[in-house]
């Protein structure tokens, strides 16, 4: 393999986002006829790396060599020209067109749309793959597995030389994964360079020739898959230095505040765990493992299929977020604060009191005085930095202050059970520390804090206990003396396909 010329070679790639170095001096070569796994934890920089290759991001440093030509940055057109195709987790298909039309999309086959020719092209690729898909079926009528095959067929029809698969097996069933692997192996034999990104280490061992590991935007190493093992990979993936400091907490862990028994819904199955008063419970798992989804079920924002929620030992009957907040004192601080958390166009006060308007209104009229009191109280408690709570629009605040508004809005409901979903994503270090202090304060007041997070440092630094999600199920629970990055990652990356 060493004499071969790499199909794609990245050298010293660096990418900086405001406040974060997403990639730092990453160099990897990809060879034709090789399946190369790219692994790393959430936020290790895999997606940014891929985006540098496809031209979605221009790197701040380093070079990309493909076909013997060297660039400092790719563009989408350039990468396509060099036969680089990427298949993302979200499919990039036009679902009202047929499989064949999607495959031939953007290609000129004569002056008019030539249905027959397109179907022939598609049929030939599908036959090569050994799959039975009718080329004239509309994409929206296909299964996710078949949609993915259409995506790959589309890439192949464009004479793709470098194929990037970003978490390709996540939406597939076991049988579909097998078909996918068969196709990938076929493409490898034809000399395509394949970059395979997966959280499932079992798949890395089953399919790939070499594996590269990224951690915190830094390139760690590349290994021959045959010569390594699961434990070694995990060791490389974690080994993260714990640099952040966390404020001390002096809370008494009390009775069980929230208990889930076989809770199922929103594609997540049979989740059981307990959370106590005065405790910070960390919820870990890879992105897409179902952490956010189950929290939405608890909160009544998504339908429950079966299972029970108990609040303070009593069975809770939650049908909507209103029940959760006002009957059972559960509040949720959502993952995507801009989309679900707050009203950007409105002022800080407006946002903070939004959930409690019912309580501060008399005959439907909002009591301005009470509104101001509540807004001021939580504005101060959250240490929101803004010129004027009544006038400043949330849109104009920094990410950290926006998050404080969302937290204040949730706390104004005076809930005892507070679920944070990615509490510190995209906010600066100072604001992070303040959020941690707020969490501690809540725990010290005897509240039950549940923290869903992808940030390993935060998870280990803040949690009293951790529950780990595998894929859409619970993989295990760790007490403080069992905390270790390796164990958590091992639990979280245990494979398993959806049904």
């Amino acid at each position: 393999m060493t004499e071969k010329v790499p199909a794609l070679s990245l050298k010293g790639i660096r990418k900086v986002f405001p406040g974060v170095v997403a990639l730092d001096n990453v160099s990897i070569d990809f060879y034709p006829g090789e399946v190369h796994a790219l692994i790393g934890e959430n936020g290790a920089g895999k997606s940014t790396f891929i985006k540098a290759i496809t031209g979605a991001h221009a790197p701040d440093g380093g070079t990309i060599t493909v076909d013997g030509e060297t660039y400092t940055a790719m563009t989408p057109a350039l990468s396509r020209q060099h036969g680089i195709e990427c298949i993302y987790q979200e499919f990039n298909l036009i679902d009202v067109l047929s499989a064949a039309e999607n495959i031939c999309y953007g290609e000129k086959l004569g002056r008019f749309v030539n249905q027959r020719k397109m179907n022939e092209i598609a049929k030939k690729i599908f036959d090569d793959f050994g799959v039975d898909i009718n080329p004239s079926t509309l994409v929206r009528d296909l299964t996710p597995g078949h949609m993915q095959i259409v995506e790959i067929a589309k890439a192949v029809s464009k004479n793709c030389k470098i194929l990037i698969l970003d978490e390709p097996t996540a939406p597939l069933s076991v049988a579909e994964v097998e078909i996918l692997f068969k196709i990938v192996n076929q493409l490898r034999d034809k000399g395509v360079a394949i970059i395979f990104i997966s959280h499932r280490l079992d798949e890395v061992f089953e399919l790939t020739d070499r594996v590269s590991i990224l951690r915190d935007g830094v390139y760690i190493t590349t290994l021959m898959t045959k010569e390594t093992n699961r434990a070694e990979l995990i060791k490389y993936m974690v080994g993260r230095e714990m640099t952040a400091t966390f404020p001390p907490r002096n809370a008494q862990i009390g009775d069980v505040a929230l208990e889930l028994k076989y809770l199922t819904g929103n594609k997540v199955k049979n989740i059981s765990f307990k959370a106590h008063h005065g405790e910070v419970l960390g919820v870990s798992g890879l992105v897409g493992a179902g952490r956010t989804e189950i929290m939405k079920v608890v909160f009544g924002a998504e339908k429950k299929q079966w299972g029970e929620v108990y609040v303070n030992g009593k069975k809770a009957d939650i049908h909507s977020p209103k029940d959760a907040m006002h009957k059972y004192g559960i509040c949720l601080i959502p993952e995507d604060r801009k989309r679900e958390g707050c009203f950007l166009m409105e002022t800080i006060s407006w946002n903070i009191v939004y959930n409690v308007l019912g309580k501060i209104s008399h005959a439907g009229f909002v009591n301005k005085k009470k509104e101001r009191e509540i807004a001021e109280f939580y504005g101060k408690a959250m240490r929101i930095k803004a010129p004027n709570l009544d006038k400043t629009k949330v849109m104009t605040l920094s990410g950290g202050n926006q998050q404080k508004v969302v937290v204040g809005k949730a706390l104004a409901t005076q809930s005892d059970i507070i679920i944070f979903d990615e509490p510190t994503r995209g906010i600066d270090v100072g604001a992070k520390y303040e959020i941690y202090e707020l969490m501690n304060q809540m725990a010290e007041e005897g509240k039950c804090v549940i923290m869903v997070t992808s940030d390993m440092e935060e998870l280990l630094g803040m949690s009293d206990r951790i529950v780990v999600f595998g894929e859409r199920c619970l993989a295990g629970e760790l007490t403080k003396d069992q905390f270790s990055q390796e164990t958590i990652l091992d639990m979280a990356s245990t494979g398993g396909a959806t049904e």
Partner: protein
Amino acid sequence: MQKKKFKDYLREYMMVLVLILVLIIFEILGQTMVGRNFFDISNLTTLISQKAYLVIVGVGITFIMLGGAMDLSTGYLLSTVGMVMALVDGNKSGDGTFFLLTFLVGIALAVVLSGFNGVMYSWLAVFPFIITLATQYIFQGATYLLTGGQNKTFSKLNPAFKGLGGTPISFLGNLKTGVIVMVIMVIIGSIILNKTHFGRNVYALGSNPDAVALSGVSVAKMRIAVFALAGLFFGIAQIINIGNKGGSVQQSFGVGDEFTVMAGAMLGGVKMGGGGGKISNMVVGVYLIGVLDYGMKYLNFNQYWIYVVLGIVLLAAIVLDTLQTRAAINAAKKVSGKPPKEAQAA
């Protein structure tokens, strides 16, 4: 307290300034072109009275727009309501309190029809454009069926119509009673929007329905409520409209007005698809269009030029608003401070 800058004031009251500017232009043009005053109490009061009905429709439309929706069916809805009121009124126009029933039926019908738009919107959760596109045909056809043909006119409706909407208030030029109703409706609408829990939810709905749902407020119920409430204003508006026209009603009453009102609301600064604006913005916008329309007729411009001018003004307002929003977004992206020395050297 953060002090408001002159620029902020200018932005907030720009449309008022434009309105004043247009009035001044018409005054000058009036003097030079036709040798008459435009600023004349009878002139201005006629203008105000004429457009009062549109403003009441506008209150309803503003609720719908702020709630993140739109309504194409308002025009035919108004037409239907007008015709049904005429039918209910029938020959009983002299009968004491019978008009109360007529009004009640008209308003209730408007609430039900608009509420129906809301129900379909909530149920299907598709953009209300297509729903109200469909329902406007239903309203149109139903009206023809009810009255047995197109271009029907009913005159001499109960004098109560005229009393409520079209009786001159003697000491105030040509100002008519409809203006009083308009003022009341504007105040009621503003209070609901600014002071009540419901009003907050209207803004919230237009601004971020996902966040509304996560707050436990039923987005579906809110949408129905917004449309039904708008219907209430539509019903009242049509009563005033009929009154203002002297107590007679034609099938065409209301048809096409939804566009004038939506244009006015947008012109005034009510954001289509939610996200900001007040009733007062709509009032200014609707009257700006009203002044242009009335003024150009007054100056004997060709009728067709009026449309061209209205279109240009509306387009200019959209351009201005878009550029302002873009500038604000770009300003928010900017970082304060200067590049470090090393960077300056390089």
